């Protein structure tokens, strides 16, 4: 869907490239997260995809078409790509309705279609269209503004979304909720998303694919699991932090570790220490600690399918983290 081929960017007045010979590809319907410290070039890559920044070398292709093609008008290109930034950038002199309708109006949609679309979108991102559409941005809370920002980017139903730390400006509780909602939304929308963050936890949570960058170089890319299991070097290890194993358990579903059995021990049923097959293994640890036992039962819906023991979890961690 999006291909970067040896993309370079050297900003005027600088000798060090902000982005150095980056090549990779983002598949359709995936969330690709760029993660790294500030100044690593992740935002620059994002801004090169919609040509807010012009690369000094290499090529970027969207659906096989060069974006730097002379026939491509950058403004028209950008109308096909959703864009969300941390500071949101809502137009303060326009109502929520007018903000969300911005791109459809640029594309000259008929007004009835626009007003239906705006209503639908505001509901999609979890806002009360009735209540909110005539308000001005200053009347909204940070979380609401961020939702409007996402709705605005989705307005013309672009196949691609660029999101630069979209949940960076809200408090952790709201951020978690927005992330969950966005993932749920994405399941239905199947957009191709480039997502920039400096928070590795957000990257692991949101990403189908993670690109780790440092000083303009691509350090490692792969699925969250691949990166957690095989960090390429100390930089990646550092970035992941000391709780790599815990993060792995967050990504592992209980059904992968379950020992299937029909005989569930009495004590598990008595204490009701069950988790769901789709729960992360981390949940099993929580239950073990809470119920003070080494064994939890696993249920798939109402059916009891087996157990996970403390030994299973330890073995699993040792196996995939490769420290033993």
């Amino acid at each position, binding site marked *: 869907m999006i291909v970067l081929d040896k993309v370079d960017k050297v900003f005027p007045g600088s000798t060090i490239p902000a982005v150095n010979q980056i090549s990779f590809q983002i598949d359709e319907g995936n969330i690709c997260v760029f993660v790294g410290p500030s100044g690593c070039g992740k935002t620059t890559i994002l801004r090169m995809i*919609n040509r807010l920044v012009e690369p000094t070398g290499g090529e970027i292709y969207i659906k096989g078409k060069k974006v730097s093609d002379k026939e491509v008008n950058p403004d*028209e290109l*950008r109308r096909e790509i959703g*864009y969300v930034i*941390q500071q949101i950038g*809502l*137009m*303060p002199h326009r109502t929520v309705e007018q903000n969300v309708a911005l791109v459809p109006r*640029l594309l000259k949609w008929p007004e009835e279609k626009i007003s239906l679309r705006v209503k639908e979108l505001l509901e999609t991102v979890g806002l009360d269209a009735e209540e909110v559409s005539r308000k001005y941005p200053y009347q909204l809370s940070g979380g609401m503004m961020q939702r409007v920002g996402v709705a605005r980017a989705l307005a013309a139903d672009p196949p691609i979304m660029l999101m630069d730390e979209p949940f960076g400006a809200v408090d952790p509780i709201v951020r978690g909720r927005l992330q969950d909602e966005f993932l749920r939304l994405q399941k239905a929308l199947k957009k191709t998303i480039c997502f920039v963050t400096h928070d590795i936890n957000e990257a692991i949570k949101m990403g189908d694919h993670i690109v780790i960058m440092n000083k303009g170089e691509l350090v490692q890319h792969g699925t969250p699991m691949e990166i957690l299991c095989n960090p390429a070097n100390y930089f990646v290890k550092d970035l992941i932090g000391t709780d790599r194993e815990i993060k792995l358990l967050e990504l592992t579903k209980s059904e992968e570790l379950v020992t299937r059995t029909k005989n569930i021990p009495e004590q598990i049923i008595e204490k009701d220490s069950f988790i769901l097959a789709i729960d992360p293994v981390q949940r099993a640890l929580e239950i073990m600690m809470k119920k003070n036992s080494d064994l939890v039962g696993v249920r798939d819906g109402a059916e009891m399918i087996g157990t996970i023991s403390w030994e299973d979890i330890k073995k699993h961690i040792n196996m995939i983290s490769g420290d033993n």
Partner: protein
Amino acid sequence: MTPLSLALALFWFSNFYDEYLGFIQFIIRRWDRVIEYTFNHFSLVLTVMFFSLILWISVGLIISRYEKLASTAFGIGNILFVIPSISLFGIFITIPMLGLGRTSAALALILYAMMPMIRNVYRGIKSVEWPILDAARGMGMSAKQILFQIQIPIAWPIIFAGIRVTVVMITGIATVATFIGERNLGRFIHHGIARESADMIIAGAVIVSVIAILLDFVLGKIEYKITSPGLRRV
């Protein structure tokens, strides 16, 4: 103590009352002149504002885009602004083809308007925060759409503040144009000084002030109308 201050207050009031009546009576007595001068004054201000808006808003927009021109333009504006008005009028009448009269008066006043106008247009356009512009570009608005749909509407309150200051200032300085042949309210003040007639001076000054306040009031109403409620909370 009390009777004395009361007497003083009465004395001051009666004096003030005489003066007050005096200039009202002057206006009534010279009604035809008042009408003529007020009309001339008003039309000069409107002419100057008409050309100033077109010229200086354009210049303000240009310098907010081409940063390098900004310091030059501000330099010129400031220099013009510190030239004493009477000498600026004087300079204009020495230019052939212009001479005494309305053209010279209008041109000098237009130059005076430069500084407050371009500075506020520039400041207004620059007050639009970067994320707003970045989002606008990122969503595919062209430079022209960003200017007319984003920058100018957001800058309105600041641009308008500049317009209001300019109008009040021009209304005041226009009185000086009487020395180069304008028959406007400045003439009352000028002649009043020459004849040591306080009534005349006050009549001129009061009418000028009323015009300035009136214009400012009307512009304030217009400003309120065209400023988006989303920007009004300040």
